[in-house]
């Protein structure tokens, strides 16, 4: 039982699932990078998984570009989304915090 995922660019550290994936299932990814990884959680169609261990504060790369920053660490095969990634753009909240210091 395996679910497919695509990797868009050789520098990417995430893959995007092409079907709904179940925890423990093998995910076979292809495209700019190829390989297999075991899913650590249920991950829905269209969502991302880490291709390797990612540290908190590390850049998330997709399309060969930075798409966000990890707010917590994640192991290979783990779900990477709004619960452990933050955007770096339009962050008026960070500016407001700086101003308040």
């Amino acid at each position, binding site marked *: 039982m395996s679910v497919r995922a695509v990797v868009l660019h050789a520098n990417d550290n995430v893959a*995007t699932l092409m079907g709904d994936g179940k925890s423990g299932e093998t995910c076979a990814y292809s495209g700019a990078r190829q390989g297999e990884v075991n899913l650590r959680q249920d991950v829905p169609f269209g*969502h991302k998984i880490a291709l390797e261990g990612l540290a908190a504060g590390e850049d*998330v790369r997709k399309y060969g570009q*930075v798409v966000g920053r990890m707010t917590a660490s994640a192991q290979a095969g783990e779900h990477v989304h709004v619960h452990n*990634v933050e955007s770096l*753009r339009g962050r008026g*909240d960070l500016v407001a915090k700086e101003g308040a210091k």
Partner: protein
Amino acid sequence: MNTFMGYRRPGDRAGIRNWVGVLSVMDNVNPVTRAIVTAVQGTLAITTLFVRGQYGRDAEIAYRTLAGLGSNPNIASVLVVGLETTSTEMIADRIRSSGKAVEIIVVQDVGGTVEAVAQGTRKALALVQKATMLQREPLPLSYLTIGVECGGSDATSGICSNPTIGEVADRIVEAGGRVVISETAEFLGAEHVFAERAVSDSVRQQFLKCVTDLEQEALRRGVDIRGTNPVPDNIRGGLTTIEEKSLGAIAKAGSTPLVGVLDYAEAPTTAGMHFMETPAPAVESMTGLAGGGIQMILFATGQGNTIGSAIAPTIKITGNYKTAERLKDNIDMRVDPILTDGVSIAEMGKRLLELTISVASGQFTVSEALGQREIAISRFEPTI
């Protein structure tokens, strides 16, 4: 295939539809406009909310967009409906400069709404009888100005539906036509990639300034846009950040150079691919595009955005196999075989180009046929 069947318009332009527009100058006469449209077949209501009491940049945008919607080449002629003379004449005159016939109804002058509907019905009837004598003729694709849009995006948007639209965008530009991409916020995180395509330093700087100004405004107000963009259905569909969304979004502009930067509802004057500064939500951005003379819109949706433009027939495409099934009533073309069956983006792009030409030549899109159309002119200031 390098021609479509279109309506010739003054000023060497072409329309892909032939509606008589009944246009409200302000929200206070929308009921009159709608009553006339109900009474006469072949008319299209062009209405928005507000306008009365707007000032500065908002007034400029409202009048430019109203005049632009009335001047859109899909509209054969226009009946302008207003409450008082000055604003009505002003909008009517601006539309007249496009070369088409414009009639007016001023509610205060004709003596109230009942009389306005009666006289407006007779005027709209005469306009429709004249407009329906016009015939389509074969015209080259260089007469097409296409808008590219995405809404309800998810992870499939950037991987297959936007790139498929990008293929058509490239073909249209190669044929001498125009393509316009908008939604300024959806370049945050991808603007450096897109800016590299600018034909000149001046265009590059103008474009980057639009994106920087928008982000600076959010920062200045202490707004964390993570609450607003991506929206809940984007997130449900796998898009985590605006950066990820933007990098997927730019694919719909294809690969040709960025030749110009347009203000909201400003018409492109040269061939090639342009950027128009608009808010991101679909109705507002499509209103800006239609106000700039765009004749049709290619619209990628992941999770299922069903609305179309009132004036520019909107083709809905999805690359999400679940959406293609669940929302099949509202999807014109599915491109998920790119992901599930290994169909190439180039091949899907060819099929979309065929559909584009067919819609340009008269085929109704589903949002057109189901009446899923709306207009909203963007505003940024308070009203006095």
